[in-house]
């Protein structure tokens, strides 16, 4: 995935699309858009930095989770199985990107209990387990784009095959000098930021 920092306007559409696709309860975000203000008045620049699971090539969550909740598919997407999670939370400790959420106590969005759609999502069964972005793997396997990519109104997000030098994402990374967040930690993330 590439994230074009020049195109992102911080509208949080991707955040909402992610919440709607995954049905995450209040307080749980698989995707966040951070604000960064640099410079000094009057030369101030505000930029937005969307983040999600970086789907690292050497994912610390996969390596360190003792119960094998996380696994890396052949295509590089890091998926998870909440049914295996026993709540050690070591994944949250070792992830350098704050990408893993923990379903501590699942509360309804509204005071009158869970709505029918919340019951459909069945977040209560995920209580006490970890969760994260899986690049909407069910959509991707059927040829669709992840919900955040599809929703982004400025097309700041691009999704594709990094191993294919002719893919849009590979070309963008080359042309724009894409960089990885915290590359110095050696996890080799699959999400590149385009400056």
């Amino acid at each position, binding site marked *: 995935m590439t994230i074009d920092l020049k195109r992102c306007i911080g509208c*949080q559409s991707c*955040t909402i699309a992610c919440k709607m696709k995954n049905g995450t309860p*209040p*307080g749980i*975000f698989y995707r*966040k858009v*951070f*604000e*960064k203000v*640099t410079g000094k008045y009057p030369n101030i620049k505000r930029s937005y*930095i969307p*983040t999600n699971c970086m789907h690292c090539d050497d994912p*610390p969550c*996969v*390596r*360190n*989770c*003792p*119960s*094998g909740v996380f696994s890396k598919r052949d295509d590089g997407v890091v998926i998870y199985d909440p049914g*295996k*999670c*026993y*709540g*050690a*939370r*070591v994944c*949250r*400790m*070792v*992830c*350098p*990107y*704050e990408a893993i959420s*923990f379903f501590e106590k699942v509360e309804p*969005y*509204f*005071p009158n209990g869970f709505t029918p759609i919340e019951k459909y999502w069945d977040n209560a069964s995920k*209580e*006490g*387990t970890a969760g994260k972005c899986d690049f909407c793997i069910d959509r991707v396997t059927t040829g669709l784009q992840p919900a955040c990519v599809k929703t982004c109104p400025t097309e700041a997000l691009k999704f594709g095959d990094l191993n294919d030098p002719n893919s849009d994402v590979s070309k963008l990374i080359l042309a724009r000098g894409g960089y990885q*967040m*915290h590359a110095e*930690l*050696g*996890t080799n993330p699959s999400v590149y930021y385009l400056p």
Partner: protein
Amino acid sequence: MISNEATKRVEALPHYTRLIPESQEIGSQYKTQTDWKLVEVLSFYLGGVGTGLYLLSQVFDYGIGLIVGYLLVVVCKNGAHLLASSKPFRAMGVLRKPGTSWISRGAYGIFTFAVLGLIDIAFRTGMVTVENVILANVVSILTALAAFFIMAYVGFVFAEARNIGFWNSPIIPVLIISYSFCMGYALFLVLAPFTADQFGYPALARQFLLTLVTTTLLIFILLTVVKRMTKSAQQAASMLITGKFSMMFGFGVIIAGLLAPICLVGYYLVNVETVSASLLSLAGLLVLVGGLLCEMCLIYAGVYRPLVEVE
């Protein structure tokens, strides 16, 4: 368009919360980890004390120490781990990834210790008589290795968190091992007066003093090293020295938990003929409290590297 009236109505609802919690809004803050709390602290602490006591009790052939050490590790440490887990009935899954996960490896160490330790205690306390001395020795050595592994793996669990600079220091595993021995001596000296066994207290005191001095030096080395590491590690060091954990760390860990026991043990060694060995028990108690506080400081001061560095 949403009217002001409607906005006010929504905000007035008792369940109204910000869409994105304030703590998650800016990715440039230095945040301490909040996932591991007192129960996790206790599990690591009890493991350290228990394995330290068990190893010393093996050396000094101290039956009660073996049983207490074993129970601390197998019952209390495991109990705390289960208590900390949100899905304890899935906890056996911890054994799935020994190839890469230090927690999984630690779990294997605990299981090995639980089985071999029971046999070792049975042999050593005479509950089961064994003719084959070699077999008893092999069981003892393997149990000791398992105990040492349990002592050591915690440091590697911490070291794996590359984004928590303070835990990522190479000194942490060494410090944890040293502190475990120190606390093992401490509990040994607290328990020893209540038993009929006779120990050479001056020799014990000298060894205890050595572990105390080593641990104190390692803490100072850790702080020196950490101050030269990443900004998040420096933040952690500041929290311990001048920040919100300074009282706990400075007074609890350094003064009451290490320097005071060093003085007490030193005083005992200088006046060994006239001073009661119960002074060593007092020093032991102080070290045990200091050890718990140190574990709390280590875990609570785990500061994450921010996602975005602020210029």
